[in-house]
């Protein structure tokens, strides 16, 4: 949102026009999150039945049918188009983390963790299932490999997200500016724990520790989804209570005499 | 040094260590055959519940905490071990 350059000249005209919503950028980023997650949810669940995860020990016949299904094709199309919103929703969190009194190392770790996580956890599965859906003619064994690859990348991609959640959690706990509540920091540490909990999916092909298992999927998802809602509500509060003067795109303190001359000659 | 030994915390620790050894012995002797043994299981689980409760009350100082914390922690110990024993006996 390039509002900053206009700020100096606009401030002189502001008396008659509507007050600028300087938090518009944050609110737009904020509202992409439910949009993005709802699109995701629709695509993954009722549309393609990719979620809840199918069994890792499905017979080859079922895997091939699934990979060639029409619904999976539509799901992949939507995913390819909507994928770009992921960075925007992460930007929403990072703008608030920037205000914290902790080292910038935390938000850089979060950023890189989110980037690598999105590539591995979302792009790779999209390619795998997309290959099955868009390209006919792969042998069943190749399709099975793509199926495994897709699901393992989606659920088993721990490392990147571990860093991200640990950085976010620690930032909140150590922050002295009280941007987000401390208990949320501890809740975020559990996000990190859910990644550890998901590690067994690499090994187990059935039972509670498989990628569709009670412990690694259902229980981990309960923690993960509840956190998403809660952090979202907390971010809403943080954006709302952020003082205008503190915003990155707040107008610089103008020198009164200089501003008068400038606005009259350039406006 | 003697004040340390007579400190209530040390006494609790001595109790905890003793029952730890006792329950290990119960499992080693009574459970040596590695077959289902409801006596051993009930004994070791109840002992574990008591140990957990002692650590929470004395080491974690919940004994001196407000009622809500006492209730929550005791409630957790109670609910957990009730569920554990419940599922165990239900499966036999």
């Amino acid at each position: 949102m390039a509002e900053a350059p206009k700020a100096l000249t606009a401030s002189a005209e502001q008396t008659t026009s509507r007050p600028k919503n300087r938090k518009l950028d944050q609110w737009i980023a904020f509202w992409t999150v439910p949009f993005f997650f709802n699109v995701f949810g629709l695509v993954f669940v009722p549309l393609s039945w990719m979620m809840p995860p199918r069994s890792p020990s499905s017979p080859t016949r079922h895997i091939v049918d699934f990979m060639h299904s029409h619904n999976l094709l539509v799901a992949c199309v939507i995913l390819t188009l909507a994928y770009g919103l992921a960075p925007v929703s992460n930007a929403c969190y990072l703008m608030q983390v920037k205000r914290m009194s902790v080292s910038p190392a935390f938000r850089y770790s979060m950023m890189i963790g989110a980037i690598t996580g999105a590539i591995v956890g979302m792009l790779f599965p999209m390619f795998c299932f997309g290959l099955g859906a868009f390209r006919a003619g792969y042998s069943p064994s190749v399709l099975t490999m793509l199926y495994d690859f897709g699901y393992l990348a989606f659920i088993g991609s721990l490392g990147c997200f571990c860093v991200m959640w640990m950085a976010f959690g620690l930032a909140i706990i150590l922050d002295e500016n009280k941007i987000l509540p401390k208990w949320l920091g501890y809740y975020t540490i559990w996000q990190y724990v859910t990644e550890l909990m998901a590690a067994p999916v690499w090994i187990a092909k059935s039972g509670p520790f498989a990628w569709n298992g009670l412990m690694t999927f259902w229980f981990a998802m309960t923690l993960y989804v509840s956190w998403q809602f809660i952090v979202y509500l907390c971010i809403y509060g943080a954006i709302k209570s952020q003082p205008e003067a503190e915003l990155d795109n707040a107008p610089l303190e103008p020198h009164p005499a200089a501003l008068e001359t400038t606005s009259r000659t350039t406006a | 040094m003697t004040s340390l030994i007579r400190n209530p915390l040390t006494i609790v620790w001595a109790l905890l260590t003793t029952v730890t050894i006792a329950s290990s012995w119960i499992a080693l002797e009574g459970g040596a055959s590695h077959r289902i043994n409801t006596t051993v299981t009930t004994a070791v689980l109840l002992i574990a519940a008591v140990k957990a409760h002692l650590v929470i009350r004395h080491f974690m100082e919940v004994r001196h905490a407000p009622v809500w914390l006492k209730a929550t922690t005791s409630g957790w110990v109670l609910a957990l071990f009730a569920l554990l024993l419940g599922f165990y006996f239900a499966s036999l």
Partner: protein
Amino acid sequence: MTDVAEGSATGVDQSQRAAGARGHVPGESSMWFFVIGDFLIFGVYFVGYMYFRGQNHELFLSSQARLNLDIGAINTVVLLTSSLFVALGTAAARAGNTADALRRFWTALAFGAAFPLLKMFEWIPEISAGLTPGTNLFFMYYYVMTGIHLCHVLLGLVIMCFVIRNLKAPGTPKISFVETGATYWHMVDVLWLVLFALLYLMR
């Protein structure tokens, strides 16, 4: 957020009684949020273990026989002893005896550090013998639960180092921070007590 009890200089016990006078929540309440939540999360694992065990007693019993109960028991006593010294250290810090507190926390740290060491003596022979998380459901639960617990222990040791650093620094130590760190460590102890009974002892 919390009442910091003012202990008298005469003896650790009096400061403990003083703490009791006002319904004191030790350390920061956000740490208690974490503790209770962690209790619940591990609780789901514990009950899940018991449920799945119920479906295959034979498998779990024969697998249990391969565990090293001796190291398990020693580790239990190690953690209990470490907790004792953390509790004693916290009381000393509250009473203003920072030197005593520091000594006790160093002792607690030493015992605590023994836990992961002993764990390696337990895990490495087991893995060498071919008992891995993939062996069967019992061993999956065993490695996952003790693994996540071990991560908690390592984090606790780091926290304890920060507490020691705080006690060593000139000036009065932040009692709330000491209590918060202590609360975390005791939680780790409690979780192990349940794990010990479920994995090593029960039949």
